[in-house]
């Protein structure tokens, strides 16, 4: 291992001090943009991502319209200031691929057949990237879709597992992703128990793959709880405010 960074220290902790099966600190917020039909924001470690959803709305150009269902369009984009060296704002090959991959991860969850001939547009803007943005992007896009009131079978939640320095770890950051041996992003619909995205980069034995997959699904389940809480939090806050108001009226 000479010349390489040590990704797991002698205590078995990772570069950012996490245990192998620990997620980064996560913050989710729903309804952050007033001009979009639905929106959400996520902070996962140092990754910060904003998602906006428009629709179902009239589709332009018209010839793309599907007679039996809505067209789901997805744009994953990294801001020029999201990485250390300025990234050109034009969509790269990687961003075009991730847009497709995230769209396909979300598609099975949405009842597209309820809105024929319309489009649902999802915009995912990476403000700051530190690994795991395709997963965090999928998670936050699902929140924005739910906030827009679009009918869905389930929320989609995504999380990566991988292998660094011979240890299976959950939720890789940028350094672990680049220097590690493998990365396995998984998008999952927890209530239905279905996987809608599964990619792998690097090498894992069949046994390790199975373990890593279970690890990633465990991570997804943890994040799913946070997703549900953040969706409800907005409305619960108003409810509590109102109840307080009533209480203060009854006091005197």
């Amino acid at each position, binding site marked *: 291992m000479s010349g390489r960074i040590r990704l797991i220290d002698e205590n078995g902790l990772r570069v950012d001090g996490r245990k192998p099966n620990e997620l980064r600190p996560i913050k989710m917020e729903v309804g952050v943009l007033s001009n979009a*039909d*639905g929106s959400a924001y996520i902070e996962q470690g140092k990754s910060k991502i904003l998602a906006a959803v428009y*629709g*179902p*709305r*009239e589709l332009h150009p018209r010839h793309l319209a599907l*007679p039996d269902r809505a067209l789901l369009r997805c744009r994953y984009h990294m801001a020029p200031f999201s990485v250390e060296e300025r990234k050109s704002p034009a969509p790269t090959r990687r961003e075009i691929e991730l847009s497709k991959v995230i769209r396909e991860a979300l598609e099975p*969850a949405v*009842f597209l057949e309820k*809105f*024929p*001939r*319309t489009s649902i547009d999802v915009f995912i803007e990476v403000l700051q990237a530190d690994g795991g943005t395709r997963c965090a992007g999928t998670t936050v896009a699902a929140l924005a879709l*739910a*906030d*827009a*009131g*679009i*009918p*869905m*079978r*389930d*929320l989609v939640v995504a999380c990566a597992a991988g292998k660094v320095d011979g240890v299976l770890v959950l939720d890789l950051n940028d350094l672990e992703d680049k220097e590690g041996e493998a990365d396995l992003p998984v998008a999952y*619909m*927890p*209530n*239905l128990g279905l996987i809608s995205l599964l990619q792998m980069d690097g090498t894992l034995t069949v046994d390790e793959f199975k373990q890593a997959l279970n690890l990633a699904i465990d991570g997804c389940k943890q994040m799913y709880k946070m*997703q*549900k809480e953040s*969706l*409800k939090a907005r*409305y*619960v806050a*108003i*409810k509590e405010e*109102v*109840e307080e*108001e*009533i209480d203060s009226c009854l006091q005197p």
Partner: protein
Amino acid sequence: MFYFENRQIVTPGELLAEGDYIAGSNTYKEGLKIYASRLGLVEYQGKTVQVIALNSVYIPSPGDQVIGKIEDVNVYGWAVDINSPYKAVLKASDALNKPFKQQKDNLASFLDIGDLIFAKVMAFDRTIDPLLTIREPGLGKITQGQIVKVSPAKIPRIIGRKASMINLLKKETECKITVGQNGIILISGPSPERERLAILAIEKIVQEAHTSGLTDRIAEMIRREKGEKI
């Protein structure tokens, strides 16, 4: 078996009930399990399980009264924006009170681009665009008042049970309030202050739509505001 209490907030995919129940609006059924398909408030009514959505777009339904804006004038009629993913069509024969003659009648002189109309949805089956009519009493071109736009999901709350909320608003603010099912509301009152008061009340209803005892609080708010201003 029910998994939630009435009027609790649920998210898409949450299991609402299991057993011999009927899946109502905004839910779906798989085997004997009923799941939520939208963010909203769950309601158990006898055998039916449904979710009242907190946010949604307007999907036209025959019989709905809507407020729309003329977007285009064609040879046969008008294209109307009704705040929905589907553009509506108003045919000249459904607007004029006389037989329509293409050579003689100038449609733009009757309704022009940008005009607002209060119309009824005649037909819509998702394969063709919704058809409107204004050939009924109370319908037609809007000539005065203020427009408020809200989420179509909040309209039932603004009307209230047996129209209790809307009647309260009309009585207390002395405004004429026309509610379009598509989330557009027309308010015309005796004075700008009264119109502002009605708009304020509607904004409060939308903001607190998912809480209980709303009608009483709105009544109190309007009376308080009136006491201060008038």
